[in-house]
């Protein structure tokens, strides 16, 4: 029905009485991108999706689709379609009738609607399932019917509310690949809500990390993972070692931070005297110097867990900071041993002060 379109959410706030679900967030999505809203429950990600879909009216702010203000437009008139968390398939209709529903609401002729529905079902791998009742489908099949039902009306933007949440792990990973492929073939923007960070990294062109109604970080998954903007992003999306410190000196894009483990010079802007936190991803911590790595901390190993390709080492510094490293199995220390940890200065991320609060 419609071309792929860009999506702009501008300064969106949503309050329920005294509760703030969204605190003035802005989001800009180019046409044809796969966006994942990632956050814990209560972070406001589902509320944001619901506002984009037209089910919830924001307290403040605007939603624009291809530059057109749709804030006051109901879901029926928006060029969006939603795949609901519980799929919301119509139990009193067959699979094909479910898929045809949106077409018949748009006045598409019966024969044409039948043809398009058959195509859509084939697209999601359910060719020949049209006559079955919804009750006869498995969870994964229902998921596909919900996808077909939403995609068949060719929405400019497809909204997915935890679409894989009800599936088992194996099926989830498989559907994840299919979703990405579908997004590429259809060329539409997908906005996908999840609390699963692996799912988010695997799917997203753009990850939006949300917490308590705010956007903590936003960017390509590689960047958000390697250089998270905030402490929340560093710990919610993957794990990190966090070291607290105080900025001693700051000069053009570099800061010297005094931590309990010594002084570290890192990239990033900060005011001298500010209390800051540093974050290091576990696979960036090494047990030996070299290649420009600097000593980061000395810690006592509490636990080593063998995980196949690597060993996950949990340790604690004398000052009490938890340290997490992933090391090759042959380099694994013994529990109780004292280890020195090294990292390349470029892998030490100065977290934004904003969220230190």
């Amino acid at each position, binding site marked *: 029905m419609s071309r792929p379109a860009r999506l702009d959410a501008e300064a969106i706030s949503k309050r329920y009485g005294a509760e703030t679900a969204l605190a003035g967030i802005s989001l800009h999505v180019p046409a044809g991108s796969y966006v994942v809203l990632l956050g814990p429950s209560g972070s406001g990600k589902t509320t944001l999706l619901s506002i984009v879909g037209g*089910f919830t009216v924001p307290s403040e702010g605007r939603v624009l689709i291809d530059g057109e203000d749709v804030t006051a437009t109901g879901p029926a008139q928006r060029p969006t379609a939603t795949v609901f968390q519980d799929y919301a398939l119509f139990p009193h209709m067959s699979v094909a009738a479910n898929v045809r529903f949106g077409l018949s609401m748009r006045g598409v002729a019966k024969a044409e609607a039948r043809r398009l529905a058959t195509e859509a079902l084939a697209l999601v791998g359910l060719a020949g399932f049209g006559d079955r009742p919804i009750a006869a489908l498995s969870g994964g099949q229902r998921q596909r019917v919900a996808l077909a039902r*939403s995609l068949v009306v060719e929405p400019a933007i497809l909204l997915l509310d935890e679409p894989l949440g009800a599936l088992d792990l194996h099926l989830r990973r498989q559907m994840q690949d299919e979703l990405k492929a579908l997004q590429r073939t259809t060329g539409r923007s997908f906005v996908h809500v999840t609390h699963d960070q692996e799912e988010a990294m695997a799917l997203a062109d753009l990850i939006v990390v949300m917490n308590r109604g705010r956007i903590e970080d936003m960017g390509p998954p590689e960047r958000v993972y390697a250089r998270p903007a905030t402490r929340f992003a560093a710990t919610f999306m993957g794990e990190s070692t966090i070291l607290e410190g105080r900025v001693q000196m700051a000069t053009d894009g570099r800061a010297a931070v005094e931590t309990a483990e010594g002084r570290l010079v890192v990239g990033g802007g900060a005011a001298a005297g500010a209390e800051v936190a540093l974050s290091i991803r576990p696979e960036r911590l090494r047990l030996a110097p070299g290649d420009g790595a600097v000593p980061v901390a000395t810690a006592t190993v509490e636990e080593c867990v063998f995980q196949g390709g690597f060993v996950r080492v949990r340790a604690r510094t004398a000052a009490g900071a938890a340290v997490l490293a992933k090391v090759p199995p042959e380099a694994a220390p013994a529990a109780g041993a004292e280890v020195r940890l090294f990292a390349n200065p470029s892998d030490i991320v100065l977290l934004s002060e904003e969220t230190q609060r």
Partner: protein
Amino acid sequence: MTGRALPALGWAALIGAFYAFIYLPVAVLMLFSFHDGRVPVPPFEGPTLDWYGRVLANGKLIEATGHSLAVGLLSSAVAVALGFLAAVAFARHRVPMRRTVEAMLVVPLTVSYIIIGLGLLITMNGLGLSKSLLGVGLGHVVINLPLCFLIALSQMGPAEARLEAAARDLGASEAAVLARITLPLAAPALIAGFFLSFTLSWDEFVIAFLLTNFDVTLPVVIWSMLRTGLNPETNAAGTLVFAVSLLLVAIVELLVLRRRGAR
């Protein structure tokens, strides 16, 4: 062994006595509808179907059956339609003074039929309307509307609301949502409500008695037959009325059970 069997026997006796207390009169009534004699008193003689033949040849009874059917079908249809619309309003829209309005909708459940009948009688007199089957029908809408409303409302929970939201998301207008989603989803509940209403209307006596003169319903005819003394023909008529009620309740039960089984 006996230590366990004894309490079990005691329970069986108690339950047996309970059911006997409830159903023995009905069973006796049914038995004596087959009685070959002029007065339905023991000892039982027969059986015979003579009395059923008389019932079916009794013009008054047949006419009253037609009235009961018409009142029951129409009043139940109206009660179901109004109950469904009221439930849609309460489940999906903002209703001003919600609690008060809902309480007023449900309260007729607790008002005795004689009060409802008297109220209607006085109102109709005041309006210059004569006693008629229309009044009975109105009375039956009053007593059945709360039931139909509550049954329909029970089928409009958050799950159904999500389905309606999904339909809107796919471009459905409000009218299309109502016709293609809300109504079909509520249909089993509405059918159950219809049959329950009909059953209640079918053997309702007090309102029908107060609001009719010449065109009467079945329970009123049976009552007038009783005034002239006991007669197996009354038993036969009563048995037939009871059989119809039983059949309807069975249909409702089947509908509800089938729905539960499907979930």
